[in-house]
């Protein structure tokens, strides 16, 4: 055994909050910057481990532009003790951060093809860096479609940005909600139902899908039915993560570790295990 001395991958770096933006009653977007040095580069689809002092650490996708910048952007929904503590951080507060980790969306491989983004709920957050990349390099892609579903109109994430994107003539955006309210004038129904009527060339499309597993299951089926081969479909998986570096065993999904083999996975590679209940 001759293990060379190496930086301890368990040690978080310290970041401070630059900006907080309330997205929804239970969801905030934090902009964080390293206390010392520059933030590492990242790829759309990767994630960081965020540590709330004394409370714990959670995996949160990167949601900002992967281009140059001093900060990381994370959209966090309060669902547990750690996410609640992180959601309450104010500008200037410090947190621990490890990352970025994992395999991202293949935005470069998708160049020249049509791109279809299918997002459910908070699943829009991990897709946002890929969407920003495609829009920033719009002429490298064919048709671009964003299909987004939310439980109800009040839970629509990035509402202002969606409105901005809708102004563009080079992106098709279709939004649906499971349950409408009195003011909603848009689609009602689940997001996979938007796929058959979207305009893209199924023989030359790369699809990026992110949302709850049940939503991804039906979205992949709809894409397949529309003629998109499964090796052109990518999903972002979610599993319990403690270490994010393949050492704790928690994120196993069949033979894969979601932290290092994912979270973004090409669907044909996982189609067999994806179909197994409670795998």
């Amino acid at each position, binding site marked *: *055994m001759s293990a060379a001395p*190496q930086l301890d991958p368990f040690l978080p770096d310290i970041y401070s909050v630059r900006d907080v933006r309330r997205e929804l009653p239970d969801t905030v977007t934090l902009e964080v910057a390293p*206390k010392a040095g520059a933030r590492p580069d990242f790829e759309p689809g990767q994630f960081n481990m965020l540590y709330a002092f*004394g409370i714990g650490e959670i995996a949160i996708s990167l949601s900002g532009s992967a281009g140059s910048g001093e900060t990381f952007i994370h959209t966090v929904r309060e669902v547990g003790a750690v996410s609640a503590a992180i959601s309450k951080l104010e500008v200037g507060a410090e947190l621990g951060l490890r990352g970025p980790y994992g395999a991202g969306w293949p935005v470069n491989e998708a160049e020249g093809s049509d791109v279809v983004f299918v997002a459910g709920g908070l699943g829009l957050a991990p897709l946002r860096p890929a969407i920003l990349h495609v829009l920033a390099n719009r002429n490298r892609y064919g048709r671009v479609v964003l299909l987004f579903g939310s439980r109800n109109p009040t839970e629509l994430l990035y509402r202002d940005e969606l409105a901005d994107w809708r102004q563009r003539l080079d992106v098709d955006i279709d939004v649906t909600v499971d349950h409408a309210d009195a003011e909603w004038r848009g689609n009602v129904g689940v997001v996979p139902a938007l796929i058959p009527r979207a305009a893209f060339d199924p023989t030359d499309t790369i699809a990026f899908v992110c949302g709850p597993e049940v939503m991804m299951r039906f979205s992949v089926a709809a894409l397949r039915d529309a003629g998109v081969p499964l090796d052109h479909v990518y999903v972002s998986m979610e599993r319990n993560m403690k270490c994010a570096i393949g050492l704790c065993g928690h994120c196993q999904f069949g*033979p894969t570790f979601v932290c290092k083999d994912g979270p973004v996975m090409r669907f044909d590679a996982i189609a067999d295990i994806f179909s197994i209940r409670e795998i």
Partner: protein
Amino acid sequence: MTETAKSVISLDGLQALIDALAAKNYQVLGPTVHDGAIIYDAITKTADLPAGWTDRQDGGRYRLERRDDDALFGFVVGPHSWKQFLHPAKETLWKASRGPDGIVVTAEEPSPQKLAFLGVRSCELAAIAVQDKVFCEGPYLDVPYAERRKDAFIVAVNCGEAGGTCFCVSMQTGPKAEAGFDVALTELHHNGAHEFLVEVGSESGAALMQDVPHRPASNEQVSAAEAAVANATNQMGRTLDTNGLKELLQGNSNHPQWDAVAERCLSCGNCTMVCPTCFCTTVDDHSDLSGDNAERVRKWDSCFTLDFSYIHGGSVRTATRSRYRQWMTHKLASWYDQFGTSGCVGCGRCITWCPVGIDITEEAAAIRAAPMSDKEKPNERP
């Protein structure tokens, strides 16, 4: 004599070996009797070893019995494994404090104490090699493990008898220690003498033997050691047919046997605690009462708990069948995908220490006896 030649040491020589390790600042850990079981703990003299004891093992059963000789290693493996020293059940990864200058994180200093393991069986050498792959050969190094591992000195002991739940022959991990040790011993009761045949496996092992009185082994002694190992080979309490086992298990995720075993499985996690290769951990973050000092503690975890697979909204593996399937399929199948080796070394601990005697070899055989046909395994979900 050359380094590779076999030599023989007496009982006093074994004491000299322990003393030589202590003199080189190793803490010597070895088998010792405690609470009716043979466990691994600090030892300083040969009298600490389980002289004249053996273990009788079967599914859900472990008993110590007296032997009719004074063998020091006349048993197989107990509830402990060397994992508890290389990959402790609980360890602080780092501490953090919060003051006027913000949060400061400090890595926990590794213990300077070097460890020497005396009595490492062949299956356990294989288990250490498996954990080396997990912790030291991935994209990220497990620094605390690697630190402890690089300094560890290993004295292997070849098994002269096999236990009731042993199947190292099936897993091709024993019973003879072939590699991965510094020194390997075979206990000999020959012509009234109680001695140990010594094989040197590393430069550190050769260096140690310079401090241990020894003499060249006779051909007779070498043959006696070979006969002892052959005896263990022929005594395996269990067998596991590994031919095509990975594909068999991965192709039978919906087999009714998973329901059958879930009827008996208590989901207690004992199998994962005693397994020498199970490596899963969780972390516990907490702070002191002032709220300004925190630490992260890493602890063994088990895939048999609901918390293990919890993501917001619920656990992925709610049913016992799913959790047992995860454990066994990981151990015998997906471990190959992840680490290029089986996760099972055939030590039999999971069988012995299962409170209801579930037997991984029987479970695999049951699926092999009646695998599902392709027609019977439609996708479970659209």
